[in-house]
């Protein structure tokens, strides 16, 4: 990538500056299939216009089982939209979501490490696109809640039917939401936080 000194680099707008007292960032990752509303959710609660960060990866034989041992590598750029919510003068919450190709997120070193947790956003018209993501979160030990983005023409399933279809234990919250609405997206995040809090309480009774 060329980086020329003549390239205009526009930093944050003045109103997007964090206070100098800002000490720490925490993050939540929003995962789900293509077109399920992840970026919409980020945008509906973010205090800044959502930004995009990216990572370049080379991968050998991802998802290509007959390609083992070959030297063929492909460079892939994974883009991630994110937004920001200032929690206090010291603490900033970042929300990451991605426009597509979810299998690559898990190759992004450090995306899930240190995250408070994840929101799995579902579209009931295409439930199966989330199966892989849920499996990977479980394998990584990333705590998550499930949020069903209620599209008008999508089938509505009782929560317990969804829970059974997704093969999720009963302690994992499943909620409905409309991610276009700020309050609804916020409630999803609150559900995740309460779930994380219950996990922390269970771990440390003191």
């Amino acid at each position, binding site marked *: 990538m060329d980086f020329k000194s003549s390239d205009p680099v526009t930093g944050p707008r003045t109103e997007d500056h*964090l206070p100098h007292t800002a000490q720490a960032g925490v993050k939540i990752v929003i995962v789900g299939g293509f077109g399920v509303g992840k970026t919409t959710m980020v945008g509906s609660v973010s205090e800044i216009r959502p930004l995009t960060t990216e990572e370049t990866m080379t991968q050998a034989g991802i998802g290509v089982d007959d390609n083992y041992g070959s030297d063929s590598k492909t460079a892939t750029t994974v883009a991630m939209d994110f937004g920001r919510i200032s929690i206090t003068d010291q603490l900033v919450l970042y929300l990451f979501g991605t426009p597509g190709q979810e299998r690559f997120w898990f190759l992004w070193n450090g995306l899930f490490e240190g995250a408070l947790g994840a929101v799995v956003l579902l579209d009931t018209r295409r439930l199966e696109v989330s199966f892989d993501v849920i499996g990977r979160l479980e394998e990584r030990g990333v705590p998550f809640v499930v949020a069903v983005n209620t599209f008008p023409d999508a089938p509505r399933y009782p929560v317990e*039917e969804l829970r059974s279809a997704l093969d999720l234990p009963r302690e994992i919250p499943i909620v409905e939401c409309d991610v276009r609405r700020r309050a609804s997206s916020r409630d999803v995040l609150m559900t995740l*936080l309460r779930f994380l809090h219950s996990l922390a309480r269970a771990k440390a009774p003191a």
Partner: protein
Amino acid sequence: MTPPQRRRRFPQEQPPQPHQPTGEGSQDGRPPKNPERLYIITGAAVEDGERAPIDLVTLIVASAELPPSASPEQSALLRICQAPLSVAEISAYLNLPFSVVTVLLTELLAAELVQARAPIVRQARADRSLLEAVMHGLQKL
């Protein structure tokens, strides 16, 4: 109508475990068992292991004047970090991949031109007081 049924890839898998404190150190001397192993291009002469533990949400703030020897990338980074900024935001504003920003920051940190304010939950599961603070902040939205 019945929804499709998820099948677990590993039937005996355990319920979610807490994060491992070591974070991304997945190469703990064992041979690679995961075919989806990833190699990040850094494109710079920073050896593995020398890289500072920089997270997407590490906050960076400039701590010194711009030296004349600074590269265009370093200058731009220092300029936008007059107020604290996360690594993710730096990557977005500079239009550079995260790993490239990480390399830049490693150099700037070594030269003490920037300060890193580390994410506080890097080491372990978030504690309750942190979660309560985040909940309180969200309620104000």
